[in-house]
């Protein structure tokens, strides 16, 4: 079973890339959806990496 931090990073990465493409190609709701995915992606990375650190 893949660890939670890996799940967060992979889902975050896919969301980020999908979001950037939506922002690049979309308009209106698709554009705003893209921005939302980008934010979700960055949060996924941040949580995934931070959750493993022990400082």
């Amino acid at each position, binding site marked *: 079973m893949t660890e939670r931090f890996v799940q967060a990073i992979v889902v975050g*990465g896919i969301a980020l890339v999908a979001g950037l493409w939506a922002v690049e*190609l979309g308009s209106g709701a698709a554009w705003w959806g893209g921005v939302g995915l980008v934010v979700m992606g960055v949060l996924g990375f941040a949580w*995934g990496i931070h959750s*493993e*650190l*022990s400082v």
Partner: protein
Amino acid sequence: MLPWEEGYWLVRFLLQRGLAAIYLCAFLVAATQFRPLAGENGLFSLRSYAERASVTDGPSLFQFFPSDRAVALAAWAGVGLSLVALLAGPYFLPPDLAVPASMGLWFLLWGLCQSFVNAGGLFYGYGWESMLLETGFLAVFLGAGPTGPPVLIVWLFSWLLFRNMFGAGLIKMRGDRCWRDLTAMDFHYETQPMPNPGSWFAHHLSERFHRLEVVGNHVVELAVPFLYFAPEPYASVAGVLTVGFQGWLMLTGNFSWLNALTIVQAIAVTSDRTLAAVLPVSAPAAAPAPLYLQVLAAGVTLLVLALSYYPVTNMLSPNQRMNAGFDPFHIVNTYGAFGSITKERYGLVVEGTNQEHPEEGDWAAYSFKGHPDDPSKRPRQWAPYHLRLDWQLWFAAMRPRPGRRQQWVFTLLERLLDGDSSVEGLLADVPFDDGPEKVRVLRYRYRFTTPEERAESGDWWVRERVGAYVPATSNPGPGPFGGELR
């Protein structure tokens, strides 16, 4: 702009030149080191390899021609073909011939490289060997001449770069605790396999900088790789971050052609439009790749996607393997680096004497090219050239005595006693004209000098003897495990 509307002619041209330069380096290494390491009378015997090898071990010309002459021929042929590739030979041919000539050239380079990697045993057991083969396999289908490359193949380079970087990021997070408590770089520069002139200085950077380096490492290896698949300019920004990260590693350590090869792969995440915007070059308007190349590219894409199953499963597994191949041709592999960081540095010093009953002062040390031995010797820059013996000495020194995988140490000692000039050629300095009467291997603990110690003594290292790795002997024999283990 959609990715298939981007141009990649210039991307391909740069990527091919970079890869050709790395092939050139790899074949020069083979020409100068393969025979003493794994040739007819090498530390590993080529003939015993040929007797034992099967097709499932990976193809090699040397299964059928196990001779030093064949090794030299293959290595120098590789050097020559790499030069043709570096000088963009196929681009000078008529348009109809450029693509088939390019495919033939890159296929030959790939096949010759396979022969060395599969026959080289332990001395070719590094992740960057299979990475070079995977990169070289994709290059066969890039094409050449006035037509552009198949876009699918360019994307497969991005997929390779992603596995290279993301795999390295995951293995660190899962591996050594020092990557999670951000102390890894307190040790890395000092204990890495082969420090370079920048390592001492990087080691003495502030603690805060070392913490930030580890955070930066996690971001560049775990988050940035996803951006390789994002639209421009994000993909190119990710490529630049990757190149910068690899550049820092090149400034502070000798990692063979690993970093240079990663930089070459990173060229694929950009596009002609971006390159033309930042470089003083203009990309030609290329026609689409010929139909037969596009069909081949589609087939290769399906093959790579199918073969990616095991590497992806491995990456997502908590029991991730660091560097591994899953097919005998090394077409799709899994990668990683420094899953664990050694906290103390050990080094081996090989010594010889002509005295039958030597006193301590009667021993003279052999000097290695890259493996630290003499504390006053400044670590040298070798990468992208690869000192295969010196790298194995780093692994060997981790144990207090030679284990099963270090039986080659006893063969090395035998060759030094014989005064074998071919093996001696792998070393920087040999203190005996015709071989000594006795040899021994001492094991030391090394650390970098502090700035104060270096100002006083001029030394780069402080070392402390911790024991005899191989006690004094005039007849090392095959070792306690009975000989060769490739």
